[in-house]
């Protein structure tokens, strides 16, 4: 780890900011709350810069941190900080985020929302973050085999939910990057 902490952090921030912001926005009910979750995620990276792995693994590490920060956030540990005020405003005003989340308006979204957190997170990591089994295993700290088995079960439950909701040919609903 040759780079000094400052330049290393800048590099990590600039390469991972967008995927981490995306990860958080896709899971945060209110876009403006995402600013605080993103800020805390990168603050943890800053404080623990020596622990952040190199290259692409840094993004997986940050997903894992963001996941825990989001869980805390959902548990009610909310605080808006002065330093995120500008970013909150930017996100609140973003046209791309103006429409309600799809899981509130589409039938498929509602089936997806009704899955357990674990199932939803696994399927999301594949479909939204485009992670493969090995990357998910490293992010969650479980074996590849466990990922494979859990994903298989999550897909099955999702397909069952779609069928139960009367969505035709649920098996034709593809998970991007893999088959359902």
């Amino acid at each position, binding site marked *: 780890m040759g780079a000094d902490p400052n330049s290393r952090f800048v590099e990590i921030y600039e390469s991972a900011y*967008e995927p981490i912001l995306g990860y958080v926005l896709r899971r945060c009910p209110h876009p403006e709350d995402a600013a605080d979750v993103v800020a805390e995620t990168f603050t943890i990276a800053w404080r623990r810069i020596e622990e952040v792995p190199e290259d692409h693994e840094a993004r997986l590490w940050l997903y894992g941190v963001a996941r825990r920060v989001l869980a805390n956030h959902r548990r009610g540990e909310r605080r808006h900080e002065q330093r995120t005020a500008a970013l909150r405003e930017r996100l609140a005003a973003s046209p791309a985020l103006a429409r309600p989340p799809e899981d509130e308006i589409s039938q498929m979204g509602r089936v997806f929302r009704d899955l357990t957190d674990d199932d939803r997170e696994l399927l999301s990591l594949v479909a939204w973050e485009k992670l493969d089994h090995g990357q998910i295993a490293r992010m969650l700290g479980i074996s590849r085999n466990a990922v494979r088995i859990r994903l298989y079960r999550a897909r099955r439950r999702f397909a069952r939910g779609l069928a139960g909701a009367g969505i035709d040919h649920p098996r034709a609903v593809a998970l991007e990057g893999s088959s359902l």
Partner: protein
Amino acid sequence: MNLADIARVHDRDLAGEAAAPEAQGLMHAIMSEERERLAVARPRRRVGRGLVLGLAATATAVAIAVGAGLVGGPATSYANAAVSIKKTDEYFSVNITDPTADRRRFEEAFRAVGLNVTVKVIPVAPSEVGKLIGPIVPGGFMWHGSIGTQSIEPCSSAFCAKVWMPADFPGRVVFGVGRPARPGEPYVDEGPGGPEGEEALSGYVSHGKAVADVRAELRRRGLKAGYRLMWQYSDGGWFDEAVPASRVKGAWTVASTRFSSSDTVDLYVTAGKDAGPAPSPHPQPQWYDMPD
């Protein structure tokens, strides 16, 4: 329809966001913080452990204040037998010399330099003795500036830290000072985050093992077991409930272990399917919630 389609936003929609002034401003704000152990005050929602305040009062208290204004304004530095605090342009430099001192000695020092805080001397594990814990802001920190601590090493006192805190913050702020717990006395738990992945026993992995197996290992090592059931909620939250041994079945799975006193290890147990419905979270008062 594709599952990817129901995402609120795609990464490609965010192209260029990292270069936005707001994102760059946040990066610089983060980097302006000191790096290691900058513990921003944030009460953790965990079940409280026993609390016994240290009452080892110093027999004689000599205090030296420097720089007190003629009209009685805050001093720029203050020292007594327990702690010395020096105000700099950016932060307060705090050196703890006697972590077992009466909490009032710490509070008087903070107040002398203009910080109205509550200090509690709390029993901790040996590795945490002397540390300044917090600042905790039970009501949340929504104010200008920042609040936090950073430990400094090397340190010739019991503990040295920088403390950031706006002197005009009107909310309640609590610091803990870790003192050695007595044998068997419960530690006040102030580890960062939950116990995920923690292993208390050297050379032994409890994660994934049955409660009965871990219990047997503790018995072999002459340790007592405490039990905390980990409940997951559909909103992604979790709650660990302290339960008696009778509530836990031997076949249930241990997620992690953590010393809760010198002779007791808490088993964090994933609630089995036959554990009944998850209770409503009922956080118990934490050490910083106790009357001052």
